[in-house]
């Protein structure tokens, strides 16, 4: 067994492709998501339609543009130009200042600024929105240093393309789950399929090594590597996504470990069915990636799915892990609120290990 593990490690570290899948892909993915979700905005292209063109409106526009956050991309003159400006796809926000802005502020103490946002990236949009609102508050303070109960400058926000503005925290647990699932399952299934493809499996079989030894020997190195990969993802989620970490870190790591073992067992099961590296890779992609993206609530809410798909989603191990991560990281819940999900994943693990030991062929057919 020990010799098996040493050999597996040697092979992994020599195979650049494995290393890239194990560490490169997770890091790049997390960085990409982190970048897309970064919470500092800078030089966001905006358009402005100033209908009043008076003192206060000019003052407000200057204030917005002189902040580092926004760049005036287009200065619109008429309402007709709005659609055109959005269609070009460059501007992320359109600020419309209503007619007689100064007059309304002075006489009624109340004026409306309309904010139209491109929400195709919901996180950026919500960020832009809050930054703009902050500038409006500031502006208000500037023209009227005595704080008023009722806000004077009323922002009217309108989201385009994705009015729901889903929370950023939906993404992180999903990404972590997909990465762990894919990396672990794909790596083991490929590495076993490779032994079959190169004929070394034939020699292994004609030796006193037991199937369980081959399987454990295969899995252990990947458990360690995937686990370190998971830790890296979590650290990056924490730093790049500003993902809160309210709950118990040890519990989170333990749950991650369990999930990794489950994914590895699934990978072994895939490899008992696939005979070549290519089949193994395709199977892991289709059997794991698509369902874990589509059916785990990661992108599409499970509640909105047809009933039959809701049942199918119960069979997706990643779904339960997403729930666990959210509970621990965001809500700070302990084991008492996630023991059910944990048991389900444990059940999957035992099931897949049992199935692969049983399906593992001691002969060639």
């Amino acid at each position, binding site marked *: 067994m020990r010799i098996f593990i040493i050999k597996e490690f*040697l092979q992994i570290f*020599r195979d650049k492709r494995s290393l890239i899948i194990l560490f490169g892909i997770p890091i790049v993915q997390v960085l990409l998501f982190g970048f897309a979700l970064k919470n500092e905005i800078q030089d966001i292209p905006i358009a402005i339609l100033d209908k009043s063109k008076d003192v206060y409106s000019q003052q407000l526009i200057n204030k917005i543009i002189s902040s580092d956050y926004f760049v005036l991309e287009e200065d619109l003159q008429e309402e007709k130009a709005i659609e055109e400006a959005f269609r070009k796809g460059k501007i992320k926000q359109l600020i419309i200042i209503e007619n007689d802005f100064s007059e309304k502020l002075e006489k009624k103490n109340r004026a409306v600024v309309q904010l139209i946002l491109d929400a195709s990236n919901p996180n950026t949009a919500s960020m832009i929105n809050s930054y703009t609102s902050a500038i409006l508050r500031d502006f208000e303070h500037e023209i009227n240093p005595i704080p008023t109960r009722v806000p004077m400058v009323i922002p009217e926000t309108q989201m385009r393309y994705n009015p729901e503005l889903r929370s950023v925290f939906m993404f992180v647990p999903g990404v972590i789950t997909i990465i762990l699932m894919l990396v672990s399952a794909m790596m083991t299934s490929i590495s076993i399929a490779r032994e079959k493809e190169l*004929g070394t499996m034939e020699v292994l*079989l004609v*030796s006193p090594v037991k199937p369980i030894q081959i399987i454990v020997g295969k899995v252990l190195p990947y458990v360690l590597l995937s686990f370190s990969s998971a830790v890296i993802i979590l650290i990056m989620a924490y730093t790049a996504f500003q993902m809160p970490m309210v709950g118990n870190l040890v519990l989170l790591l333990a749950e991650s470990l369990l999930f990794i073992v489950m994914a590895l067992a699934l990978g072994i099961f895939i490899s008992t069915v696939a005979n070549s590296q290519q089949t193994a890779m395709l199977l892991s992609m289709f059997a794991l990636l698509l369902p874990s993206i589509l059916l785990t609530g990661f992108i599409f809410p499970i509640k909105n799915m047809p009933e039959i798909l809701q049942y199918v989603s119960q069979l997706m191990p990643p779904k339960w892990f997403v729930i666990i991560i959210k509970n621990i990281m965001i809500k700070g819940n302990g084991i008492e609120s996630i023991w059910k999900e944990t048991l389900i994943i444990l059940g999957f693990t035992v099931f897949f290990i049992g199935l692969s030991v049983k399906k593992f062929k001691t*002969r*060639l057919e």
Partner: protein
Amino acid sequence: MIQIQNVHKSFGNIQALKGISLEIAEGELFGFIGPDGAGKTTLFRVLVSLLVPDEGKATVMDLDVVNDYKKLRTQLGYMPGRFSLYQDLTVEENLNFFAGIFKTTLKENYELIKPIYQQIEPFKKRRAGALSGGMKQKLALSCALIHKPKVLFLDEPTTGVDAVSRKEFWEMLQSLKKQGITIVVSTPYMEEAALCDRIALIQKGELLDIDKPQNIINRYSHFLYGIKAERMYDLVKILRENTHCNSAYLFGEYVHFSSNTELDMDKLKAELISTGMENVEVISLQANIEDSFMDLMAKTNNQA
């Protein structure tokens, strides 16, 4: 040592083995000779317990290949036809790994593999994938030997290996045989047959003959002539139309022409010249294994 009784094996509609029966004695160097697709690999896989025969029974060291496979696997050495070592591990790592899975160490059995391993030891830090064909094969043999098996199955060990390495390889087998290891080897190269104690000629899943190579050659019942001329291809055609012809095929630089009756070589030569052949040369030949094999093959095909 090895008993095979009426072993059948089919893959779908293809009958790979059609009732093979034979016995191999302890300490023998036994060769299976036959073309690609004859069923050699299938038979080997049955013997090393990787395949279960559809019909019939096989035992190796009195262990049934189906029921006692676990015990059997600790005692046999197997070198599959493909180069089945870890290409990304070094020579030394491969050996240590295979020693490890048989619960032994390189040190413990160093003496046994020493004559072979010494030749590749200077490259022990090199990855197996970067070795030459001959060295890979020596490494594979070392790995198959590392646990001191009593019987060694080598499936086409010399395919794709240069002539010098092949010769060296057979010398190694001879020395292993002297240490009492039973060796079962398969090869598509007829000339290697003569190096075995006994051989089985196998074709399309059936055994054509089993005997000492010399006995098989001695049983060759035709008169054999080697004929050479300018246009070899036409020569074969003309010879096949000859009334005395049993068979005629190109083998090396001569056409091997066999006849059921003894022929006057000068007369044959004159006949050939009269058909327009130039620089004709006719010599008398001793049959080799390939001639015997072709002859046996033709006979079985005629019966079928």
